[in-house]
């Protein structure tokens, strides 16, 4: 006599499986939402900080040059935000509405920071090192991934270097204006360094050649490190 099929057991197994399966989906969604909120909250904080800097700068006028050290301000925050946003883009997809919104907000924050740096440059006579980078995720830019690696490495190596990365195809008027002001063509990857446009892949060495100050920064850092170790 063969063991009978117990329909009840099949059903119970199905219910438990469905609960685990959809439970995993719910937990995953919850974590994704938590991440999106974290990015939102970082963006809000950054927005407030930039606004505060702008206000402080407007209030103090020229004397603000001493009060505000803008050489590395927001650079780390923008960098961390970029990594998190890129992670979410990989996970949820480039078409995800939430991701696109966060990306737009991030692009605006970058432009605001860029404008603030421009003000500092004009009023304080400093020459900050900035790179504006245009990329595309639409599969039409084979070298964008490599360029991304180069810029990430440079960003880690030189905190003084301010890199503003924009998705060339992002549907945001401010980004479109940025493109037209800089006169960037649709030949990607595109870099804007000191108001000059460069198209195609540029290696670390290429960029260091374009910006000789980077080597000076490295030399200064190495000298400081040697001095510290000698003192010990």
């Amino acid at each position, binding site marked *: 006599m*063969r*063991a009978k099929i117990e329909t009840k*057991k099949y059903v119970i197994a199905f219910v438990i499986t469905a609960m685990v399966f959809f439970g995993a989906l719910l937990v995953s969604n919850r974590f994704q939402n938590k991440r999106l909120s974290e990015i939102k909250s970082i963006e809000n904080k950054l927005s407030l900080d930039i606004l505060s800097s702008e206000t402080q700068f407007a209030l103090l006028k020229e004397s603000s040059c001493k009060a505000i050290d803008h050489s590395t301000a927001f650079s780390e925050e923008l960098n961390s935000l970029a990594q998190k946003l890129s992670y979410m883009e990989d996970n949820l997809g480039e078409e995800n509405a939430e991701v696109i919104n966060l990306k737009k907000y991030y692009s605006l924050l970058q432009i605001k920071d860029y404008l603030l740096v421009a003000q500092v440059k004009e009023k304080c006579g400093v020459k900050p090192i900035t790179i504006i980078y245009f990329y595309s995720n639409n599969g039409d830019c084979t070298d964008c991934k490599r360029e991304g690696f180069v810029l990430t*490495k440079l960003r880690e190596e030189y905190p003084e270097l301010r890199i503003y990365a924009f998705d060339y195809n992002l549907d945001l008027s401010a980004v479109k204006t940025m493109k037209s002001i800089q006169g960037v063509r649709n030949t990607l990857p595109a870099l804007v360094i000191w108001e000059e446009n460069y198209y195609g892949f540029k290696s670390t060495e290429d960029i260091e050649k374009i910006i000789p100050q980077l080597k000076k920064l490295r030399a200064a850092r190495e000298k400081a490190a040697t001095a510290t170790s000698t003192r010990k």
Partner: protein
Amino acid sequence: MIETFFDSILYTFLFVTLYLEVFFLITFFEERLKLAVKSSSAKLSYYPSTTIIVPCWNEEKTVSKTVDSLLGLHYPKDRLQIFIIDDGSTDSTWEVIQKFADNPQIKLFKKENGGKHTAVNLGIENSTSELIGCLDADSFVDKNALHEIARAFNEDLHMMAATPVLIVHEPKTILQKMQKTEYHTGTFLKRMLSPLDAINVTPGPFSIFRREVFEKIGLYKNAHNTEDMEFALRMQSHHMRIRNVHTALVHTTAPGTLYKLYRQRLRWTYGTMKNTLDYRFMIFRREYGILGMITLPLFFFGIFIFLYNFGFIAFHTARSVIDKAIQISTVGLSFAFPRFDPFFFNTDFMAILSYVFLGLGLVIIWNGTKLAEGRFRPSMGIFYYIFLYGIVAPIWFTRAVINLIFSSGTKWR
């Protein structure tokens, strides 16, 4: 769009896999009291007469140890006969087994090479006992194995065949250690299939049958080099009960090199698919119970599901490796220690499902090890099984599918 299509197939497969794991774990919960039964040397009310057939083909190195283990069984000597059948060996197997010629429990046979099933059939034809079994000449029985199986036959008069728990004998290489854990999971699965009357193979090492099985359904026949599977399916098609006796332990030698493992598994996988196709009339038929509804579809379609899932993982792994290679070739190696940020801890749907599968897999390994060895002991075999099996198994699965499509068979060795 294409990605969504492939993801949907993957999720369906994962749901089915999860369903089966849950189903077996529910069965485990139902069976937990019976699983606590340990091997006992208490005398049996009746000792059925038994013949154990040892088919040999070039087994000069291991056959003596196999026969010695049979002679050491805790079972009345006058109730146990051993047939050693030399299936046309070309080495000195025949000379080696001559040392057993004078043992009244043992009979020696020599025949022309005709394949394992012909040797076993010769033994069956010459036996007169109530129980008939087989033991491959590279396997060794635990001294209580037959005693436990005879007890199970005494307790269940409808039971027509009994299969033991197989344990990998003295694993030395990484692959053998991996197989040891694999066998433990197999132990769990077979024990769960047993009360469901859904066992689809009576393995060569020490499966024991009532004589009437052969009288009713005939002897072994040539079946894609996996005659033990064909025979089990033939029994199932006649609604004959096959049970797994988890207290009967048999140690078997596992292939130590990748090539030998590949040959063996290719034969098993191809044989599984071909035999399942030969008995396809049982698939999804309620009258064949869980065998028809779960075991046969699982063992046939499971291979395709496994390969699909493997393909998915391999595709994503390859993509990550290519990205990493591009990164290294562009900016060189970075030796900076990555900072831990919980934000980047992978919690997407696939990752959470993987954690669930890993957890359930560990529960199965834990309980399979307990069944086979009496208690759970962490070992490197578990690590090798989790991280290595998924990489090596696709090799023979893929080849078996190719052989199936192009109808090219497999060889024994």
